[in-house]
């Protein structure tokens, strides 16, 4: 019995936060299902998954970065640039688009890793700079406008088709999360990433290869952002150099709502996914709510509501954690 319950054992306040986000997600789904017709229609669920898989991908990379105590502001710009590269390469072969987009992401990740570990510049500033550079490069490559992908090479399948009834982007995100979970929970490197987040200097003294691991994490974040860019290009049929604005904040919020501390050293892959879905669901719900015509049509109320929702989630989470710590 105890063995069965083990995965649910609440050991730390982080577990509470993780449990909290999953409950909040379920609550929101229930709310939507009861309040709106068609909310749980297959059409809505599938298009929700198709669109939000991009955010799930960057949130996963961000989770790893944040676990090391860093931050990656460049993900949005990277995805935009990668989508342009993928679109430009897509006429040659669908794989050229896919690999090219990911390579673009890897390139930004490598630059991040270099600036952070070799030049010793704090992640916030390093990735702020590469965010600008990635947008600039994307715009330059694209000539300031969206670039059409090839509809003939099969590239758009990556974004627009289904497999076993589910959108391919959702499968890609799922695969990435399974891999991410394996890395963090099952492989030694995952423990090393956590330990580095606990304290870089300490981790170094304990014999971990801090610089190499950190560079690897930024590389992974870049690659995932690149993959999100590929999905972006394939799903919407165009490389979009101006897309991705604010994605980094969305990803950071997903990770934090998923119970990961920005100070690093702790975090969960599964809860990050729940966090991303939770925040994405708010947009979906707001669209449905507008259909009911209750809230005023202005977009401004929507941002107020989104802010308030985030507030409620994090305050409840904080209270839960405090209660747990007090106990």
């Amino acid at each position, binding site marked *: 019995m105890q063995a069965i319950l083990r995965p649910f054992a609440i050991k730390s306040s982080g577990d509470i936060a993780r449990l909290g986000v999953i409950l909040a997600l379920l609550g929101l789904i229930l709310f939507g299902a009861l309040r709106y017709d068609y909310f749980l229609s297959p059409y809505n669920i599938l298009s929700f998954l198709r669109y939000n898989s991009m955010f799930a991908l960057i949130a996963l990379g961000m989770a790893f970065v944040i676990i090391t105590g860093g931050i990656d502001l460049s993900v949005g710009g990277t995805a935009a640039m990668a989508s342009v590269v993928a679109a430009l390469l897509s006429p040659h072969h669908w794989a050229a688009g896919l690999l090219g987009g990911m390579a673009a992401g890897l390139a930004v990740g490598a630059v991040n890793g270099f600036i952070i570990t070799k030049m010793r510049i704090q992640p916030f500033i390093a990735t702020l700079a590469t965010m600008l550079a990635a947008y600039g490069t994307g715009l330059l490559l694209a000539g300031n406008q969206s670039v059409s992908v090839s509809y003939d090479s099969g590239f758009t399948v990556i974004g627009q088709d289904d497999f076993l009834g589910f959108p391919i982007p959702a499968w890609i995100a799922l695969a990435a999360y399974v891999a991410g979970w394996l890395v963090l929970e099952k492989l030694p490197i995952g423990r090393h990433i956590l330990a580095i987040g606990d304290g870089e200097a300490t981790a170094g003294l304990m014999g971990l290869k801090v610089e190499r691991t950190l560079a690897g994490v930024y590389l992974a974040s870049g690659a995932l952002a690149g993959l999100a860019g590929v999905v972006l290009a394939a799903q919407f049929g165009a490389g*979009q150099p*101006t897309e991705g604005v604010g994605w980094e904040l969305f990803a950071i919020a997903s990770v934090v709502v998923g119970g990961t501390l920005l100070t690093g050293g702790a975090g969960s892959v599964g809860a990050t996914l729940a966090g991303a879905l939770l925040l994405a669901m708010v947009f979906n719900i707001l669209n449905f709510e507008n259909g009911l015509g209750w809230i005023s049509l202005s977009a401004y109320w929507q941002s107020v509501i989104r802010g308030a929702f985030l507030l409620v989630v994090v305050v409840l989470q904080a209270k839960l954690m405090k209660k747990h710590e007090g106990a």
Partner: protein
Amino acid sequence: ELPKLAQKDTYKVGFAQTESNNPWRIAQTNSMKAEAEKLGFQLVYTDAAGSAAKQVADVNSMIAQGVDVIFLAPREEKPLIPAVMAAKKAGIPVILLDRSVDPSLAKAGEDYVTFIGSDFIEEGKRVAEWLIKNANGKSKIIELEGTTGSSPANDRKKGFDEAIKAAGGFEIVASQTGDFARDKGRQVAEALLQAHPDADVIYAHNDEMAMGAIAALEAAGKVPGKDVLVLSIDGGKEAVQAVVDGKIAAVVECNPRFGPKAFETMLRYAKGEAIDPWVINEDKFYDASNAAAELADAY
């Protein structure tokens, strides 16, 4: 093959707006909202906050909610194609507002009903034509571009630059983005006027930046309209007033009041009338000759 629209007393209508961070968009939204209210239709409004991808997702959520028709103000030509196609597949007619989608990928009358709006390239061209006629020896141009990568910025630049180049004798000494914003437009104009004190024309891609440019000119001790001609696009009330005051030399209107025409077109389509692939929204042109008279009608 184009989805049909049944004739009903009332409709559930989707309007997918691209963003609402500038007065022009707000005027457009308000016009749509007012018209829907007048007709007693239920309006499902979404705001993509400047993201083409989100706009597609918004359209999808409208489809899920089972709207009868979708008005789409596409943020961009290419990325919105999947939205148009998804609606078509779901049997929901789409009417495009103010920007179109890539004609090589989706066609009016086939994939969507029609495009209502004006032509951004044409707007830039009209500004250039006025300048060519009325330059009076002024020839060094500072161009304040819209948000980099956005289609109005690209097209308004293209239309203007090509016409100006063809005319000869003009020089664009600087062309920088002011993000369609007054504050940014002013700051950029301030810097460019410093670096190019000999510039005597400022062409702004929208009214907000033109107003910013006027503030920059005044701060630099120059007289807008005399030392430097200011040209703009959009034609909101404040800009037309500036034409009256002589601060803006000329402005091309880009009317955001889409509501009446949009719903009229939709109802005509429901009746089964044939709709032109491009319903042109007539745009005015203001300069010293007509601004005072037209001021009251400006939006």
